């Protein structure tokens, strides 16, 4: 037996371990328990290694285009902001003017208008805008909200 074994060429034993590209021998890496494997998977999900796309390489022309777009956007936002601030200022001045006028006209009403409203809350019925309307756009029936 020994003699026969020794006659088999050495390279043949390494060939047997690979059948059509499928590894038949267990890998040398120690297998881990399922718990550990789960942790490894979760960590690999968080980690960016192997998940990063290639960095963007912008040509000079592309870079200028990108900067132009961003500049245009910031100018547009600035215009909007200015308009909004202007309107707010007008509204603020208008309130001041109205209150000053009310003070001259009727001091009693002025006092009531400036009284602090304790416990006043923002109404929960007021909805924030959404992208598409609900099936029922407006609620026409009103629950009696009398005190």
């Amino acid at each position, binding site marked *: 037996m020994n003699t026969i074994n020794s006659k088999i060429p050495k390279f043949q034993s390494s060939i047997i371990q690979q059948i059509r590209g499928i590894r038949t021998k267990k890998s040398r890496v120690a297998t881990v328990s399922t718990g550990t494997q789960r942790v490894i*998977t*979760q960590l*690999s*999900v968080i980690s*960016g290694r*192997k*998940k*990063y*796309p*290639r960095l*963007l390489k912008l040509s000079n022309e592309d870079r200028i285009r990108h900067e132009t*777009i961003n500049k*245009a*956007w910031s100018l*547009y936002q600035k215009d909007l902001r200015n*308009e*909004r601030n202007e*309107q707010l200022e*007008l*509204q603020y001045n*208008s*309130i001041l*003017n*109205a*209150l*000053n*006028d*009310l*003070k*001259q*006209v*009727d*001091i*009693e*009403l002025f006092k*009531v*208008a*400036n*009284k602090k*409203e304790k416990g006043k809350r923002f*109404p929960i*019925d*007021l*909805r924030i*805008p*959404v*992208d*598409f*309307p*609900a*099936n029922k*756009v*407006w*609620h*026409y*029936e*009103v*629950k009696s*909200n009398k005190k």
Partner: protein
Amino acid sequence: MIVLKRCLSTASNVKSSSQIPLNSIKSALLLVRQPIVTPDLTKFEEVYYNYQEELERRLMWTFPQYYYFKKGSLSERRFVKAQKGPVSKQPGVFFQKGIPDIVHNRERRSKQEIIIPKEEYDESSSMSDFNRPVVPNSRITEADKTNNVKSLERKLPRTLHLLIKDEKLGWKLPSFELSEKDKLLHRNAEAGMRNLGGESINTWTVSRKPTAVLKYLSNKLVDSKENSEGLVREFIIKSHILSGEFSPKDIEYAWLTKEEIKDKVSKEYYEATEFLFSRV
């Protein structure tokens, strides 16, 4: 105790309140319906948001599918089958669009497109209800098509303001005379509006403070800084409509956006109240 005197105040020079009759003060109501859907995007906004989204997708990490689908499971197979899969690098092949750079089954040079597999169920199956395509409601309502200005369901992306038609003064914000019994501005405005349009309305008054004052001299609008005899003052109280509707019997009214208000009201009136109306 320190007594603070407003030495520079001009208010002390003015006539005392008792000289102004109550019927020369009115309360007006700026009733607002807030937008129900998000504002329409301008062409520029649309294009810019699209550009940003494409950039973001291009720079996004590879989707870790091994985390969401268990290896060898049916759902994993279904998912993998639905994906297009990138072109892989082969030796001795010329690639027109550059040599592929693939890690984790993703082409690193471009955005990753994930296709969610469509699951097929019978019509009768209870799962078919989950799987039906989502069709959003139209942002343009029936009231928009018929241009019904009395409807609260019109112009959903815009703020609407309630205007009524006065016989003498034309289109304006509703205003109400003060009475001795119901003297407070904010209460009078709310009560007057309910007298006109019925009780089935739910509103929220923003503040007791008036947002603006309009001054009339013999039915003609004058500057709000004007201070002469015989002025009729309208103090505007702001309020939101939350539910219900304004349904008066015999007066004409409309829910209008800022631009539409400009067309309806007189030029002086619009100039005096323009800043009260919302641009959105």
